[in-house]
């Protein structure tokens, strides 16, 4: 087991793979409201990302165990799947946000305290390292079920690394 395998086998994505792909760059650059990134590389019986998608961007599952496949032309970055996914595996990234150095991420969050709009938070990568600061733009609870969708302004260069935030005490 090499280091990459060890990381992946413990729940850390190290490279794109089936069920965990990056959006197409050209479409992504100018897509207002952003595109979804789903990191769900294992076959498990679960399909709410598809059944909740209002535009059909998460394609129908032949088998409920299939990894999600995305039709990026249809994704509007609405983040419904971010709020619904039981695995907290959906993240929306809007590259059109703010100036050229910034981007907006819409992240699922279920910890306390609830982040406050306008506050600065730590941005964590897939192994929990704080790699930058971000600013909370909006805090929503779309399904009224205690899963928060946090909109955070982050450095654009870090969007493929940041996967959660930590409230700064």
């Amino acid at each position, binding site marked *: *087991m090499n280091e990459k395998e060890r990381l992946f*086998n*413990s*729940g*850390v994505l190290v490279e794109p793979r089936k069920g965990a792909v990056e959006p197409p760059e050209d479409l992504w650059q100018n897509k207002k409201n952003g595109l979804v990134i789903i990191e769900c590389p294992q076959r*498990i019986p*679960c399909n709410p990302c598809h059944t909740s998608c209002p535009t059909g961007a998460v394609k129908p599952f032949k088998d*409920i165990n299939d990894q999600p496949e995305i039709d990026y032309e249809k994704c509007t970055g609405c983040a419904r799947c971010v709020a619904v996914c039981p695995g907290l595996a959906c993240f929306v990234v809007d590259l059109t946000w703010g100036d050229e150095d910034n981007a907006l991420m819409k992240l699922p969050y279920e910890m306390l305290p609830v982040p406050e709009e306008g506050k600065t938070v730590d941005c*964590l990568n897939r*192994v929990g390292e704080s790699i930058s600061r971000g600013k909370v733009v909006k805090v929503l609870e779309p399904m009224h079920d205690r899963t928060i969708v946090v909109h955070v302004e982050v450095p654009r260069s870090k969007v493929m690394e940041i996967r959660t935030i930590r409230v700064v005490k």
Partner: protein
Amino acid sequence: MRTRGKVKGLRQTEVLVIGGGPAGLSASLEAASLGCQVTLVDSDLALGGQLIKQTHKFFGSKDERAGTRGFKISEILLEELERYKDRVKVHMNCTATGFYREDGVVSCVIGEDEYFRIKPGKIVMATGAQERLLPFPNNHLPGVYGAGAVQTLMNVYGVAPGKRVLMVGAGNIGLIVSYQLMQAGVEIAGIVEAMDRVGGYWVHAAKVRRMGVPIYLRHTIKEALGDRVVAGAVIQEIDDRFQPVGKEIQIDVDIICMAVGLTPTCELLWQAGCEMVFVPQLCGHVAQRDLFMRTSHPDIWVAGDAAGIEEASAAMVEGRIAGVGVARSLGKDDSSEHSKRLEEYRRRLADLRGGEVGQKICQGLECCTVNEWGV
């Protein structure tokens, strides 16, 4: 002889369901919906079994209420039960203590002093599972918990078990309980896992990893440290034969939480003389069953973790199947309705078992399933 408590006469019921978790509740609901009179007994103070501690959202499809938190699913089942309250009699705090093969009577104790005997027409055993524990030096110290106890303290009684936890086992329970502990403000020092990958869903592992929790693959707990209570733990890497190698790592924790698997609760099935078989993939001894979940005993069905360790979503569907099976054998409702429901439930089960984790379950089921018992 001095008799403690009250002894009452022999009671009757068409169907006795033992255990009010996801499987038992589903079996009761299904049997009642097909016209059966059901008695449901559960040893706990509230119905719902382990569901009432599950604060995470469930996987599956809409049929299994994917995206709904476990305790909400329990509430939904109890609302459904309310609709059948004229057909389902519930006894809480009630333990089924024995099955008597000679007359098919089940003995039950409510609390500590009310005893009764009941003669059911049919029985669904939905007795759930018991936690496994690991032997290691000092595992008797206060602060060493099973994951079930930690979840009960936290999510039923609102008590944080400690400040800093070492989780032993990265199956779904270990991963989910770690996440829930973090939600309660408790720090997770690390998760040790003997295998070379997490046993639970990858996404559950990703959730705790991105909050900085290390998962030590191919590691085990060597000993607990502490004088009167847990003050730390020693972990160590293990090789292919699970032998300790490499250097020991000492971790400061006040809680060691074991999530190293479950095993089916099957004493009553043994007592009833059901044909039993040891199936490692289902985590212990389980009853042979047919496609209706009927055991080799013609009046006894089994469902949920008691039939083999699996997710609650599968337990609920198995309970439904057992409920139909019982109603069918009692001649309730028409058989076309039975067939329609069975077809639907079997399709759902096949879907739930189609993934990576489900493969193991399917292998196990091949070792203990018969098409139909000879009459």
